[in-house]
């Protein structure tokens, strides 16, 4: 099977954003043969093309380590993993230097000084990437180092032999044929898991990698948190990407509204009241206003005009760095031998329950990508490599193409739409309640058990959509189950029936794992040394207010 469609390689990297490119380059520099497979095109994949900032901690720029650590823990409501937060701050400067060495450019002012960006009340003040081009620049460097790229191939299953990962299989979007990549180690860099929402360019982030890993027994974490982005109701599908292109102005829509964190500062509800001011936000304020009957919510533009906002522009997505494969050490290794993860598909919990600023996602992807690449390279030194039996390969192939063999059933577009119908309303994932979560879960289980197995497609494009919607159903199930499990509110996780933070019971992370046909959930307690001083008043510990939360003073 040694042809271009069936490749053997030391390390397979899946996904070509910041994390995947860093992993591939670092592994290749160790002398490993590396192939990076992307269902699109590495350098243009996932969230990375839209990155604007790269968070770099650098004492020479006047940065205060303790202040940054405290900021992330406070905004992240004490469920960030402080080892990983520290790792980001320790290694981000090296990754920044890597980027510069590889030819990536950062913006400078007229005097040649590096431009830093920040928003009130937040750290870091992050350097500004020269937009749009850096992905291609990094890709070119990867090509120079000898990384091999495979474009437009969707991988659907991780292969295992005796419990060890031995590569992955999938199909080409162009010829629709089966593809296999046998590898001694796999680095999962497939980003987060959204539900193809409107208003944010994350429609290809469908939790494919996480779902692959879950099915072979990987521990998954961080699913109950939210990325509560909003979009313009006038241009609901008009994404951040286009706002920032030089073509944006000619296309018509209004000027850059800034990131959602900044937008909130300028939002008012239907009664003309200011909604919030940073800091002390969990970014759920738009949803809270809607729930109280005070929508529409407006954004006040620079010229004094008002534009309506809609919520749920990133529905399904967790906060950068929070969701995905739970790393078992600082080496980005999963609990499955040979399987590593980086970027937004690695649940490092760098930032905790709420995103604390700008540039953490891209910098974390670079830091974990590099670590995962080096770890995978070290791992394979002791791995002889296994041959996948032909019958096993045939089984994978048969399963992948089941939707193409059906003569009746459901289309993936329709199933995606009804999944969105169930999951998008604010009262499911943003203003949560046990009853509603349970009711929605019942419907999602029906989609999983009855509808998804009957998907039918006629071409490779739709086969991709069929596999994506299966991943999205899995993603929905994880978010509903973990949201039910965390019987408190914290950061971007708000339970109307448990509106207060519950310390110390829930100074914990939630992990999940496949257990036969069931999804098993459990708590991973956060080390007490990382707890805040619980003798402090609740309002001081937690600046963001939750509706229905009764203050201790009032009790």
């Amino acid at each position, binding site marked *: 099977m040694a042809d271009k469609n069936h490749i053997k390689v030391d390390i397979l990297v899946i996904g070509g954003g910041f994390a995947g490119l860093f992993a591939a380059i670092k592994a290749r520099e160790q002398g490993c043969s590396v192939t990076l497979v992307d269902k699109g095109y590495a350098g243009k994949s996932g969230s990375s093309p839209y990155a604007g900032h790269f968070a770099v901690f650098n004492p020479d720029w006047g940065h205060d380590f303790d202040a940054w650590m405290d900021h992330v823990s406070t905004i992240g409501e004490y469920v960030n993993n402080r080892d990983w937060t520290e790792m980001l701050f320790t290694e981000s400067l090296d990754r920044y230097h890597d980027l510069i060495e590889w030819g990536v450019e950062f913006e400078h002012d007229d005097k040649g000084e590096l431009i830093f960006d920040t928003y009130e009340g937040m750290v870091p003040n992050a350097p500004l990437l020269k937009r749009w081009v850096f992905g291609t620049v990094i890709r070119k460097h990867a090509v120079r180092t000898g990384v091999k790229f495979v*474009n437009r191939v969707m991988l659907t299953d991780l292969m295992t032999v005796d419990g060890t990962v031995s590569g992955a299989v999938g199909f080409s979007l162009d010829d629709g044929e089966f593809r296999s990549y046998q590898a001694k180690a796999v680095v999962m860099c497939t980003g987060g898991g959204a539900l193809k929402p409107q208003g944010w360019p994350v429609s290809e982030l469908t939790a494919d990698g996480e779902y692959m890993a879950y099915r072979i027994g990987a521990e998954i974490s961080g699913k109950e948190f939210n990325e509560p982005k909003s979009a313009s109701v006038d241009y609901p599908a*008009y994404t951040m990407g286009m706002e920032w292109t030089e073509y944006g102005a000619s296309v018509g829509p209004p000027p850059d509204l800034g990131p959602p964190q900044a937008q909130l500062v300028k939002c008012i509800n239907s009664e003309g009241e200011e909604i919030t001011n940073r800091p002390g936000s969990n970014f759920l304020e738009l949803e809270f206003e809607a729930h109280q009957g005070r929508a529409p919510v407006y954004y006040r533009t620079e010229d004094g005009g008002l534009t309506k906002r809609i919520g749920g522009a990133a529905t399904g997505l967790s906060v950068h760095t929070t969701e995905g494969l739970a790393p078992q050490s600082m080496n980005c290794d999963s609990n499955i031998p040979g399987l590593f993860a980086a970027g937004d598909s690695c649940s490092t919990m760098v930032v905790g329950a709420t995103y604390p600023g700008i540039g953490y996602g891209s910098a974390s992807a670079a830091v974990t990508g590099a670590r995962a690449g080096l770890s995978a390279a070290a791992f394979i030194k002791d791995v002889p490599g296994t041959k996948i039996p032909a019958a096993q390969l045939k089984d994978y192939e048969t399963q992948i193409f089941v939707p193409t063999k059906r003569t009746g059933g459901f289309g993936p577009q329709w199933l995606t739409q009804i999944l969105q119908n169930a999951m998008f309303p604010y009262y499911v994932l943003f203003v949560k309640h046990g009853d509603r979560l349970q009711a929605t879960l019942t419907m999602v289980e029906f989609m999983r058990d009855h509808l998804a197995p009957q998907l039918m497609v006629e071409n490779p*494009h739709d086969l991709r959509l069929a596999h994506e919607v299966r991943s999205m159903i899995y993603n929905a199930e994880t978010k509903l189950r973990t949201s039910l499990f965390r019987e408190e509110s914290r950061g971007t996780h708000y339970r109307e029936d448990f509106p207060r933070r519950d310390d110390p019971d829930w100074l914990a992370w939630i992990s999940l794992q496949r257990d036969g046909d069931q999804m098993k959930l459990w708590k991973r307690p956060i080390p007490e040394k990382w707890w805040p001083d619980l003798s402090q008043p609740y309002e001081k510990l937690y600046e963001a207010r939750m509706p229905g939360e009764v203050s201790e003073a009032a009790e």
Partner: protein
Amino acid sequence: MTIDRIDRDLCNSCRLCVFTCPMDVIRMDADNVKAIIAYPDDCMLCGLCMVDCEKNAIFVGADRNPPLITSWG
């Protein structure tokens, strides 16, 4: 919520947009010569194709209200 059009005369057949589109919206035509909009329903309006096209042959319109499912409305 779709890409509007690709100008056949301006298109130089470089295929960059086919690779760039994260959603597999753009493909080459039956003769494998010009880029065409194959799956417009899956366009997420990221604008990457438009940014990358050296010939400015791709037009993405945002001034429309597609039938959307939203959190409220």
